[in-house]
């Protein structure tokens, strides 16, 4: 379980993130929203230990993040970056297999997990192909399968951080990917996902965090966060909020 206390990050003289206190709940998906430059990726970097906190602490399972050894941490915390720069022709399943590096679960079990993770990311049909031959969206799903395999099957105490996992996906796969993430969270893992699409966030997240200029503006359920006032203040966007006719979650419509 990942917890941040009064977290602040500085880049040079600028404070790009401050006063973040938050706890990722097991079995829940936390969506992070905010305009460009609000500090979403910075938050993810600080929570994953990539960026040094100028103030505050990040705890993983009651222990400070920095105190975990590499592979111990990797078994509890997986991170999917916005884009990857892999430029070598690994096979798809080899890329996913890298998610099993921190584990010593044996080749047979690994193969099984790789297959399940690929299926979960709707990428099972890509097995056997060279990573370099895939489209951007296909690559994104392969990497999702990789981080899912890293925590598979996903139990309480584990955390998955996703930075815009749907940015390159077609509408169908935006939904299947986030549905897969939800399903994964139901096993007990805590998930944090950075999203730009407010309606996707409303539909698949249990909690939403609205960031504005490096500060937490609102933290709460989709119904609490997705309101015309805060969205106008943060995004500068005039919106109408309706209720989804079938599912009941808020629906954001630009005016």
């Amino acid at each position, binding site marked *: 379980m990942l917890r941040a206390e009064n977290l602040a990050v500085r880049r040079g003289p600028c404070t790009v993130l401050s006063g973040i206190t938050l706890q990722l709940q097991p079995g829940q998906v936390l969506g992070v929203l905010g305009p460009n430059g609000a500090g979403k990726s910075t938050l993810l970097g600080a929570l994953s230990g990539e960026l040094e906190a100028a103030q505050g602490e990040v705890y993983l399972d009651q222990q400070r993040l920095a105190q975990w050894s*590499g592979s111990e941490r990797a078994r509890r915390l997986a991170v999917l970056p916005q884009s990857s720069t892999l430029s*070598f022709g*690994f*096979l798809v399943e080899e890329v996913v297999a890298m*998610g099993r590096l921190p584990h010593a679960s044996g080749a047979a079990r690994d193969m099984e997990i790789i297959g399940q993770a690929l299926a979960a990311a709707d990428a099972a049909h890509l097995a056997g192909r060279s990573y370099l031959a895939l489209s951007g969206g296909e690559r994104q799903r392969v990497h999702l399968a990789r981080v899912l395999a890293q925590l598979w099957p996903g139990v309480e105490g584990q955390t998955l951080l996703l930075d815009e996992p749907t940015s390159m996906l077609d509408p169908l796969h935006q939904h299947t990917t986030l549905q897969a993430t939800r399903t994964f969270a139901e096993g007990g893992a805590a998930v944090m996902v950075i999203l730009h699409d407010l309606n996707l966030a409303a539909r698949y997240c249990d909690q939403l965090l609205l960031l504005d200029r490096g500060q937490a503006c609102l933290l709460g359920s989709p119904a609490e966060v997705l309101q015309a006032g805060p969205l106008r203040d943060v995004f500068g966007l005039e919106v109408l909020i309706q209720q989804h006719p079938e599912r009941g979650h808020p629906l954001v419509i630009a005016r």
Partner: protein
Amino acid sequence: MNLVVKPRPLLIALGVLLLCAFSLSLALGPVSLSLADTAKALLNLLGFPVAGAEQAQLIIEQIRMPRSLLGAAVGCVLALCGVAMQGLFRNPLADPGLVGVSSGAALGAAVAIVGGAMLGGIPAAISPYLLSVCAFAGGLLVTAMVYRLGRRDGVTHVGTMLLAGIALTALAGAAIGLFTYLADDATLRTLTFWNLGSLNGASYPRLWPLLVVTLGVGLWLPRRASALNALLLGESEARHLGIEVERVKRELVLCTALGVGAAVAAAGMIGFIGLVVPHLVRLLAGPDHRLLLPASALAGASLLLFADLLARLVLAPAELPIGIVTALIGAPFFLYLLLRGRA
């Protein structure tokens, strides 16, 4: 595009190739020995005394065997270091020279050759050792500087390291140029020949240090095969997969400095092996370092032995510097791979 061969058959085939290369390297040379004499000499070498082939025994034991071992070790370690550097820089076109080890070694050699000549000549008995030690030390020193320049706040920035490598290579080039300017004609030729590499004059005392380093690098790098795979995803991804990225980078640079430094110290500059062999093997074996490393080691050793066979047979009784042969084989082959890949 996918020429991927199954690991076990590939390793077996490459092993057989190396065995062939080594046998040919022992059996062929400017002096033609009969098969019977060669066999007798080999039996002698293996500890079964057989009389009647003293000349063959001398040639095989004292000339061809150390030379073949040297060639195999140099090819093996250059190819391994090429793999390590291409992994570290996440670029299939990276070359061990990028971290400055080659230019540093060349500078060390220039200091030894030209400096020695200017100080009135180094006694012939120690000059080859002095040259090797200076080349090795130069390679280590420049690599250490490149590594140091690439570090900030306890993190090694590979991009900065690359640029520092280019800058220090240029600086070393200037220093070598200065020594070239100061050198007389004969010294200049020695320097030029050194820069083209040669396995000529291999002897056991000069072979052991390289064999030890090759063995060390050859045993260590495969332990980091998975880490190298993860590094290809990106440094932060590798960290998230639990890899101690800083330590791995340090080890890769150290292995390369030691490996290439020792190879260059023993045989001069031999280009293209570190670049072409991993590239070629990747086409056959795919990018997985668990297979790429051992396969490249075998292929590098074989390729260098074949190149050396050409080097000593083509112009016999004179010899072609082996660097010319490796570049002559390597460069067109490399172009072929590039053009074929594009089509």
